[in-house]
């Protein structure tokens, strides 16, 4: 197991880097061993505090940011709009994390799954008297079903062929959302959306935006953990050498369908939360551009951990909506930034940060050795 973890990690994201958590753990252990010439074992050397801290540094670092984000959002309508946009990009970027980033499946019809989640909330709240919370399982079931059908139809396709089919699928789905007026409300959309009925609690759209941020954070923590577990390893190996995982008894087509279903389910949850936060569902919110930009955010932020999605999404919202001087040219600057990052820092901004950190780390070790 140790061997397989190493070999997959070394190939990860195609840039010959090791996984971030592994690198962290190994780095800390090396320092501890260097500090302790008595040769005591690793577990004995680590105190209780360090054992919690080591390998979970990213999660712990993210907590203050989460609290800051929730604080920043509350009570300010403009901030809430920005946060809604941010968290929607984060959800799409997280939805494509397992299928696209980890497993390299170019089926990119995520805007359709987000739309399904959104429309299931809208349909239940406008057309029925059911509790809106039912929209979540309904959206997940429909989105996963469609992802499985699309996945099974295109199981033999890869590369550009798969990307082209899923782009055509997005176009066709958008036509459907526009034309099927009795179901989707057509171009004028569906709304207003009722709140989820909970005994004794009334939730406002702002509460849903806060809830979305927390759910996105939880999903990111989950994905970050999955990444280094056996499922994550198998998924990552699927991208590099599918024959190898077929040889150890994992059926690649089944695995492909499973990762696509995970992506569809996450996308649908994101769509449902988006609908609750915005109060109306419009068909033009689920275009191909949204998926492409979400894909860029994941790569811009960094592919080695799901946190890249957050950094990338924050940048895209800042560039395309918040900064006044970029009002019309925001997307241009954003796509140029993606090209620059792909050329100069193929691991994304987080990967760049990790590299700078390890450089400082090595420098520190050399200095301490010299002075010591």
């Amino acid at each position: 197991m140790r061997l397989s973890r190493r070999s997959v990690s070394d190939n990860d994201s195609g840039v010959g880097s090791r996984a971030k958590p592994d690198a962290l753990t190994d780095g800390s252990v090396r320092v501890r061993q260097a500090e302790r010439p008595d040769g005591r074992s690793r577990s004995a050397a680590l105190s209780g505090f360090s054992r919690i801290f080591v390998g979970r540094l990213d999660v712990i670092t993210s907590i203050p940011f989460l609290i800051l984000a929730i604080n920043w959002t509350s009570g300010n309508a403009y901030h809430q709009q920005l946060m809604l946009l941010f968290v929607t990009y984060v959800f799409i970027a997280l939805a494509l994390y397992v299928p696209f980033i980890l497993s390299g499946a170019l089926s990119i019809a995520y805007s359709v799954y987000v739309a399904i989640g959104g429309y299931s909330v809208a349909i239940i709240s406008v057309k029925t008297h059911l509790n809106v919370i039912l929209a979540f399982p309904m959206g997940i079931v429909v989105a996963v079903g469609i992802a499985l059908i699309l996945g099974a139809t295109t199981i033999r396709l890869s590369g550009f062929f798969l990307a082209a089919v899923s782009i055509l699928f997005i176009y066709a789905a958008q036509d459907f959302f526009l034309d099927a007026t009795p179901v989707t409300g057509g171009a004028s959309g569906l709304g207003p959306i009722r709140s989820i009925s909970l005994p004794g609690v009334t939730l406002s759209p702002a509460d849903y935006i806060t809830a979305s941020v927390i759910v996105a954070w939880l999903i990111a923590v989950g994905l970050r953990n999955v990444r280094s577990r056996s499922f994550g390893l198998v998924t990552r190996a699927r991208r590099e050498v599918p024959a190898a995982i077929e040889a150890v008894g994992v059926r690649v087509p089944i695995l492909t369908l499973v990762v696509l279903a995970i992506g569809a389910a996450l996308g649908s949850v994101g769509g449902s939360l988006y609908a609750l936060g915005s109060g109306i569902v419009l068909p033009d919110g689920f275009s191909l551009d949204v998926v492409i930009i979400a894909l860029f955010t994941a790569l811009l932020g960094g592919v080695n951990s799901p946190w890249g999605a957050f950094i990338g999404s924050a940048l895209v919202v800042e560039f395309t909506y918040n900064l006044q001087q970029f009002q019309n040219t925001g997307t241009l600057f954003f796509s140029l930034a993606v090209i620059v990052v792909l050329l100069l820092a193929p691991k994304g901004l987080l990967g760049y940060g990790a590299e700078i950190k390890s450089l400082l780390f090595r420098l520190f070790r050399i200095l301490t050795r010299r002075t010591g």
Partner: protein
Amino acid sequence: MPPASDLIAAFQDGCFFGLIALGYSMVLEATGFFNFALGAMVMFAAIFSAYLVAVIHMPLALAVMVGIASAAILSVLSDQLVISPIEKRGTGGELPALVAVTAVLFAIQQFAGTVFGRYPLPSESWINRPPLMWGSVAISWQIIVTVVITLLVFAAIHLWTKRSLYGRLLYAVGDNRNAARTLGLPVNRIRLVAFVLSGLIGGLAGTLFASNGGGVGFENGFSYSLYGFLALVIGGRGSVWAPLLGGLVLANAQTYSIYRFGGGALDFATLVLALIFFGLRPTGLVARRVRI
């Protein structure tokens, strides 16, 4: 059957898709790389030439030439600045290069939208004469020009790949780049020629299509890329003329589906056509025969 005027329009669209597919195939044959950003260059040439005529009041012929040249320059720049460096890194499979060309496509679209405005510009027909009447069907001169130029371009590329040194080298290099390099063939120069040609053909397609009168929006690049790709897959790579066949099949299928099922059926029909060809005949209608 759809009315004759629709079929003639489909023929024109088919020529357009076929030219984009031919542009793709140049780069694909020489480098094995699929330059998905070509659609944006097609769009750029179209908008740029329309802008030069409408805003700068440049003569049409000059504006068209500048538009075509701009597509060729964009094609070479995207290769030299983005595609080549990422391909040379050689890691991560096709994903980084694919994302990079998508980013290039996006950047060119946004650049065009920023510089030339976000609304379609009016464009001029190349020949201002009353349409030719064939029975009760009117055929505009622009369609005739489009078809004739498309056929000339395909014939020229056909002759070029069969007769000229560089045309034959294009296929030789594409078949095995390492062997070609070992033999001392000018691999890099062939690559440059392929990207220039691809840009020129794409630029010509864009300016021809824009002169149709409908105007071209800056966000059309993505769908041009997609339709060109489909035309290439449907046609196959067995002959220089195959992209034209693919383009005509695609355009006719789209026209027929709109006629039969209404305007909303266009994207569904394209999706079904793609699934049929990708699933059942991924080598296209004219597959390359290999003698063993």
